[in-house]
């Protein structure tokens, strides 16, 4: 069964989320949102999801501050962060590089510490994005032992590959490559050094059960909250997916 790249990424994220109780999804993260709603469809409403930008039925009654307060209390198990640059020590940069200005750090400098684990996610896999050292640290990948920190990076997912973060070595380990890429392709397009096994497995494709859920109930939620993204991924099929 053929599938979109976004669908592969979403099922991979769903596997990374595992059995978390509460997942928060921040600004402009439709693929992580797809992953969480896929899990919820499959597991009878588990995990709880807090979608910061949910347009109706938003989970926060005290405004956007509440997401951070919840995280500070330890009530959020999984969060997602991206980066204009991400480096080999899992530092992320959302501010500026080489004279180019990006939107800004959002809540990253706090959430990276406070959420139980963070999945780093960036579709573009290039030496421009995955750099040796970020030009600006919006949020650090690790902290000195005296700095209190509940969580940190768990994995880095890109459009080409999945890396696991190894905290004790402060390095990434290449875990799998997506169909269409290869270990050599990943090495050539990554600006930082990382560990890799002798033989790198392929990222598991979405099952037909997963695809059916994604294109049914999951697509309906995504369309409501990320209309542009939904149009891009599901295109003409969208008319069918829209509730009457």
């Amino acid at each position: 069964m053929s599938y979109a790249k976004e669908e592969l990424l979403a099922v991979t994220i769903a596997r990374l989320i595992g059995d978390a109780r509460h997942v928060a999804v921040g600004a402009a993260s439709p693929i992580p949102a797809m992953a969480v709603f896929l899990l919820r469809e499959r597991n009878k409403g588990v995990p709880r999801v807090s979608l910061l930008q949910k347009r109706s039925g938003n989970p926060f009654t005290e405004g956007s501050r509440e997401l951070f307060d919840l995280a500070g209390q330890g009530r959020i198990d999984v969060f997602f962060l991206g980066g204009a640059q991400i480096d080999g020590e899992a530092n992320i940069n959302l501010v500026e590089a080489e004279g180019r200005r990006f939107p800004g750090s959002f809540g990253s400098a706090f959430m990276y510490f406070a959420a139980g684990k963070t999945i780093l996610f960036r579709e573009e896999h290039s030496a421009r994005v995955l750099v040796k050292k970020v030009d600006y640290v919006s949020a650090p990948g690790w902290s000195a032992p005296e700095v209190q920190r509940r969580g940190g990076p768990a994995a880095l997912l890109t459009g080409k590959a999945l890396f696991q973060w190894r905290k004790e070595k402060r390095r990434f380990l290449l875990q799998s490559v997506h169909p269409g890429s290869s270990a050599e392709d990943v090495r050539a397009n990554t600006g930082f050094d990382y560990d890799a096994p002798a033989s790198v497995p392929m990222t598991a494709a979405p099952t037909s059960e997963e695809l059916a859920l994604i294109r049914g109930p999951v697509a309906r939620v995504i369309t409501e909250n990320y209309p542009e993204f939904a149009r891009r991924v599901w295109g003409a099929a969208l008319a069918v997916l829209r509730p009457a």
Partner: protein
Amino acid sequence: MSLPSNRTRRLGGPEALAGEIPDGATIGLPPDYSLVAMAVVRSLVRRGAKDLKLIGVPVLGLCADILIGAGCVREVETSAVTLGEAGLAPRFTEAAEKKSIKVVDATCPMIHTGLQATEKGVPFMPLRGVLGSDLVKHHPDWKTIDNPYAKGDPILLAKAIVPDIALFHARWADEAGNVWVGRRGELATIAHASKACYVSYEELKPGDMLEDELLAPGCIGSVYVTAVAPAPRGAWPLGVPGAYGIDDAHVMHYARLAKTAEGFQQYLEEFVFKTVAA
């Protein structure tokens, strides 16, 4: 420092509200998903406001991009400026890259925490995390101390933030000067922490919403509100939950036009300087 106890004034419309916001003011503003007073923002552009400092609570979007593009802004302090699905905020991006505005980068909960310090009337408030971020190096008002209750535990302090002005839109105002913003709690935080608070509204409710048990929890009491003015569809092209949604197609149209200075001028001519029937 003391903040005022207000007797809310009722003004005629968004132009009158914009007229009370002086050049050079520091204005606390909500994100695009949270009741932005867009009609007042357009009025500020029309009156040629200058040297404004915008504080994003905690991020900024379309309203900031328009004010920056129109030359109304000297400085922004924010955790991000974004048009959401429509991508980068083009006028902000260009101004920041050309350094024609000053940008103070923050992270969302530090902005909330600084405002919450002012809500409590204390000079600062601590927050976990953030240490090791370059934000700490560059931000003029953040300091790291040792937790006085535990040895060897560094923790970051947010200095109290006191905007001159809180500016946002409400679903309702009432005859008693209260405004209803529902679950948009960051608006209450901005209102509580600011020296003056200006609110445009969709509809006027007769009486006093604080007498209604169901409406009262979504209200900001008149004690915080300097003045209100009617502006039906005043958040357009952004939304008012329960009344109308974000006009996504318009925001995309803006994002495309504002990529160039000429396109942005064309946008202003069409949607700001001409009176728009939204």
